[in-house]
């Protein structure tokens, strides 16, 4: 099982979702993707849309930089 990382803190809509979707598409069963993202729309929608697409959100935690969060998603 592989663990991938993605930083979308510098991205804006729609590339926040586009880059996450492209990375999620690379996952094999059991692989995880750690997405570092900002508060607001990315934090609200990346976990929700990932769940809707059949992925499992393992955790959402505050990251080191204020206003950023780490979302761990598993296929």
């Amino acid at each position, binding site marked *: 099982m592989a663990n991938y990382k993605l930083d979308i803190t510098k*991205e804006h809509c729609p590339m926040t979702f586009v880059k996450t979707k492209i990375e999620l598409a690379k996952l094999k069963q059991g692989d995880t993707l750690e997405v570092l993202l900002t508060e607001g729309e990315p934090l609200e929608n990346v976990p929700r849309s990932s769940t809707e697409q059949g992925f499992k959100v393992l955790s959402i935690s505050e990251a080191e930089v204020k206003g950023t969060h780490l979302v761990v998603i598993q296929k």
Partner: protein
Amino acid sequence: MAISEIKLDPGTKKLSIISFSGDFDKLTAVFTLATGAAAVGYDVNLFFTFWGLDAIKIKQGRSAVGKGFLPKVFGIFMGGLKSAPVSRLNFGGISPNIFRYLMRKNNVATLEELVEAAKVLGINFYACEMAMHILGIQKSDLIPEVKDILGVATFLKLADGGQTLFI
């Protein structure tokens, strides 16, 4: 594509956009909505008609695309994705490059990046048969990602059950 061949999955969320305008800003809206929707799990259909066809020409600059004299003149004046004007304050074609600069500076995807993302995300590109006929555009003038040339009835069937926008 025949209407009878279209199989719709009632459980899938769907967005269909009629891309009528060849303007830089309106095409940016089309591809922003399309890629955003595809990225969060929607099936997305883009139906390019009239000036919207400029966005999916292989030749992105000004060129004599089209069969016949008048279509070629239109082709030269309208051009493709790289020569799309903005709908307001175009300033003789300077504004799109100012927008591209501002988009890069603010780390926002440019129109060209959004189009590439749309291809990667598997968004369905369709072209309008009637507009292609008027403008003398052949399927070979369009990017290979264009899945099919459609009429209204087939597009409506594809869009059935989802959300539809006209831009």
